[in-house]
């Protein structure tokens, strides 16, 4: 008797969501099998790497390793964005609105939104605007961003249970995409999607952010929750979880101690650059295997590794 490999039975698929507009718009999701299980179902849109920029100069907050490729542009978000797209071929751009952080610079919402608007206008690829996870400040900033960027279909993150009404309504009004963010909990991820649906946000405008833990800092929790989301969506036909997933990888990986210690400080951990790049790449690849449709990354060499991985897997 010939060998018959066991096949998973699927009862649902992930919805397609379009980020951005025009020729460079990016379609994500659409998968009808587990990640990269192309022998069991369709994976029409390969996962994407999004490149992140900050809206403020990260000198002093980033290690030399992360800073080095962008040294010439970090003080100018527009130039930085263009470098990511033109030089590194970024297909999606994420702008982290770090300048808005009420515990640091606390730049007024209108000024933050101005810079975001300039960046969005300067590139033709889709943009994700990622806030600081402070409900009040994000609400102010994202309302202004939504209005100024009307018609661009930006994705706005993180939209949480505490601010989904305000930010969700702004996204709804100006036809942007919502990144629904929940604290590493499958039940809460589902609940937030239900609440957004009830608010009127259409299903093709919702992307899930399960909250990312970096390698050594809770990656396995994020991994498990993403597995459960994927299982519910694909094998239990749970239509409230059939949304693509985005993981904010770089922000988590590069803030941890081991990614930033120099070779001299931690010789037992090996070369600093290799270490940082590998930590970012490994975190991203793990999350792709768990079902991420977009991974947000920073270092061009880590990005190359991950893109190479995706190509080989498809």
């Amino acid at each position, binding site marked *: 008797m010939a060998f018959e490999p066991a096949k998973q039975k699927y009862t649902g698929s992930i919805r397609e969501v379009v980020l951005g507009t025009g020729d460079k718009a990016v379609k994500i999701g659409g998968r009808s099998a587990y990640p990269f299980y192309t022998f069991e179902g369709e994976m029409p849109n390969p996962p994407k790497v999004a490149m992140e920029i900050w809206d403020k100069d990260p000198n002093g907050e980033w290690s030399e390793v992360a800073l080095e490729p962008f040294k010439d542009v970090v003080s100018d978000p527009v130039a930085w964005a263009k470098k990511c797209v033109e030089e590194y071929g970024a297909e999606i751009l994420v702008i982290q609105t770090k300048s808005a952080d009420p515990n640091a610079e606390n730049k007024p919402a209108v000024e933050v939104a101005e810079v975001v608007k300039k960046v969005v206008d300067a590139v033709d690829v889709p943009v994700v605007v990622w806030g600081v996870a402070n409900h009040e400040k994000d609400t102010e900033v994202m309302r202004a961003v939504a209005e100024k960027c009307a018609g661009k279909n930006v994705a706005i993150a993180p939209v949480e249970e505490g601010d989904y009404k305000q930010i969700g309504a702004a996204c709804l009004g100006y036809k942007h995409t919502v990144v629904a963010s929940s604290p590493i909990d*499958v*039940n*809460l991820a*589902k*609940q937030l999607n*239900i*609440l957004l649906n*009830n608010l009127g946000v259409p299903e093709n405008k919702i992307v899930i952010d399960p909250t990312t833990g970096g390698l050594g800092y809770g990656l396995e929790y994020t991994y498990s929750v993403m597995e*459960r989301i994927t299982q*519910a969506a694909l094998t*239990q036909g*749970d239509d*409230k*979880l059939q949304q693509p997933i985005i993981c904010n990888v770089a922000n988590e990986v590069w803030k941890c101690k081991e990614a930033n210690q120099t070779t001299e400080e931690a010789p037992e951990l090996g070369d600093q650059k290799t270490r940082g790049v590998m930590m970012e790449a490994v975190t991203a690849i793990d999350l792709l295997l768990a079902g991420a449709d977009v991974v947000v990354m920073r270092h061009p060499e880590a990005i190359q590794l991950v893109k190479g991985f995706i190509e080989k897997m498809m």
Partner: protein
Amino acid sequence: MKLIGENLNIMSKKYGKALKERDAKTLQELAVQEAEAGMDYIDLNIGPAGKTGEELMSWLVPVIHEVVDLPLALDTSNIKAIEAGLKAHKKGRAMINSIMVRPERMDALLPLAKEYDAEFIGLLWGPEGMPRDENERGALCAELLFRASEMGIPPERIYIDPIQTPVNVQQNQIMSALNFMKMFPDMAPGCSSTIGLSNVSNGAPEHLRPILNQVMLILWKRWGMQSAIVDTFDYELHKIARGERPELEALVAKVEDGEEIDMASLTKEEQDFVKTARVILGHTLYSDSWLEV
């Protein structure tokens, strides 16, 4: 099913205060209400109660027995308080709530159960914490029964509690506890069983807790659970425990057996029971809005 009323609890704002202030009247009113609601036992949950536990339990047991004749479940991790409660318990047979399957707990509490001929709840919580599946539950249960039988405690004094977890954090543990329950009668002939039912709805929106508790009770009942620690004032739940809602029991059994259900033909209450059974059994993923989707 026998019911153990859970409301006299140190965590309750009203009764916690009454316990601290030794306010007998408030506690006695509750005890009378519990008896009138048809409870078979009254749980006295005084928390760990540190240094005052012994004195508190010695005071509380006669205070409650002044107004009701029900047996009392002495619910504390404080061994001295348990012993004080056993000494003071003069009406019927007291219940120890609970004895964990940890050597130091069994060493201290099983002799008391024997000495006072008390009933006890054997909580399947081992040296490494919560059992991971039905087999670990089985192993802990066997160990406890062995120790009890060695001491000459008859099985009818023992109520095994396989541990109720909340549906919104550990749904898979509900499945292993249910699976344990299916093997329990063969494993422990003559023993009873009980469950801290309300924990299934811990963390769920307050107004939706009763239906989770009710459906969970139906599932336990189906697999032979003999008693439960419950909200005294959930009268719908009591009807289920008394077997007065056979149509709902049949419906939940259909869900558990994976039968097709024509939702359109059901009443709103029946639909809600089906949806709730599905989230408890993991057919669909729990969210706070589970009844609306």
